[in-house]
């Protein structure tokens, strides 16, 4: 098998003594859509922030195109970041710039292209996500779905090799979310991008994924294709796929605490 474009080895992250990620290893191949699944608080956003190099791990390495992003020179890091587009959960559009200027911001900052070329590129990127008519609007004037699409357009502005999505469908209605799924598949097909998506939306995950990985309490409990994943007997995966809730009250401890609060501890004994 070819060298993976992203390889995470033994990634361990601790915040104030609490272990958020525990020796996680994952390889992402060139041209595949990898979906990182996990419940709230499973550490998936933390993992994503380490893969895109926003934070330094406690231990372990993250290699992108074979380069260790925490041990490389500033120039190498810059090259890697130019090859990687990130669409954040909150879209993270620059509020002081129009949608158009948001899209052409990385082009203006990182290239020396002439203005007419930039204009054409911006229009094409906007058209690719269906926002051709909305270039003049300000981010505040966009709906949730449009914001996310604009974020995708900005992330793809420099035609990156790798595209990273944090929760693309969170907070969107099913129709808009489905539209984003199709957009992701289109980007993969049209530009052969490697795409990493972090989500907890099952339907969307199975629609777009080539392979899935599941994080639970800071550890990867499964990595595999859709079929392998659906057949996995791990109880947590079963629970996730079957949408079974956790018991809400850990009864004994909760009961005791309620008694304490009500001042009944003494009365009982």
């Amino acid at each position: 098998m070819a060298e993976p474009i992203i390889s995470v080895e033994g990634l361990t992250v601790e915040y104030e003594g609490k272990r958020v990620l525990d020796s996680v290893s994952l390889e992402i191949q060139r041209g595949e859509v990898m979906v990182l699944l996990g419940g709230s608080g499973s550490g998936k956003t933390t993992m994503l922030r380490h893969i895109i190099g926003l934070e330094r791990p406690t231990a372990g390495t993250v290699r992108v195109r074979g380069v260790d992003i925490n041990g490389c020179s500033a120039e190498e890091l810059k090259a890697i970041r130019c090859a990687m587009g990130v669409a954040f959960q909150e879209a993270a559009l620059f509020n002081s710039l129009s949608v158009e200027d948001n899209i052409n911001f990385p082009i203006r900052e990182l290239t020396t292209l002439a203005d007419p070329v930039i204009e054409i590129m911006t229009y094409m990127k906007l058209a690719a996500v269906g926002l051709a008519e909305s270039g003049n609007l300000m981010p505040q004037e966009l709906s949730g779905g449009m914001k996310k699409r604009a974020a995708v357009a900005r992330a793809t502005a420099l035609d990156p090799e790798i595209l990273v999505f944090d929760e693309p469908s969170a907070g969107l209605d099913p129709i808009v979310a489905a539209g984003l799924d199709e957009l992701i598949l289109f980007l993969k097909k049209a530009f052969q991008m490697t795409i990493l998506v972090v989500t907890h939306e099952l339907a969307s995950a199975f629609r777009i994924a080539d392979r899935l990985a599941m994080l639970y309490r800071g550890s990867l409990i499964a990595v595999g294709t859709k079929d392998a994943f659906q057949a996995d007997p791990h109880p947590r995966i079963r629970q996730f796929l079957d949408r079974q809730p956790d018991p809400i009250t850990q009864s004994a401890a909760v009961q005791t605490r309620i008694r304490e609060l009500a001042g009944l501890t003494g009365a009982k004994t």
Partner: protein
Amino acid sequence: MNMLEAIGDGVIQGLSYLGGLVMQFWSELRASPRVLPVVGKRGRWKTAMRQMVAIGVDGLPLIAIMSVCAGFILAMQSGSELRRFGALQYVMDVVGIGFTREIGPLLTALIVCGRSGSAFSAEIGTMMVTSEIDAMKTMAIDPIELVLTPKYVAAMITIPCLTIMSNTFGILAGAVFMYITTKISLSMYLRYVFNSIELHDVLTGLLKSLIFATIIVNVGCMEGLRVRGGADAVGRSATSGVVRSTYLVILADAFFTAIFYLVHKD
């Protein structure tokens, strides 16, 4: 032991804060040529110009009013004492020297700190909360170069200008006081003031205003960059930005005034 630990903790935190400020200042200095027109990166100087308007032009009315009031207060307070010795003309010295050396730079710094320092913290803090700063980093664009440096360059240019304006307004307020009390004409007054102040009074004042500008921008931006969480954290950062930079401005003022005093003893 507990108290020792607390003191040690405080010292370490204070030092690491100062260290962070110095590092940030250094990155800004290195990035500042890219903000200049012609030699810098395209369009970046426009951001600096916008900041200059926000800090300088928009802040001028407030600085003017406050300086006129402060000048008048200074003249009245010193006048009421000096009058008893028949030395009312020394009010002109007090106002002239007091403003150029001290009140002009300090008043300007405190007003800019309240107006723009809090705005820096809030703006950058909001950009942290909405991941805009993270987005810049992932695009291989240095937020210090893009967001902080234009503010720094703008402040380094406008704050000394505002200080000169503050000096002017304060001294003119003194002229009004002298006219009302002793009927000294404006030209007489100005001649007297220009005789009493020396170039080094004005220059030390301006040098201090550059130091204040550095403190205000760096503390304001640093508080913004330290924001983690939501809207309440942005609010807190604006408050602590103003409080900390006011505190550091006055500390730096005391320090540099002491140095100028020692150097210029004769």
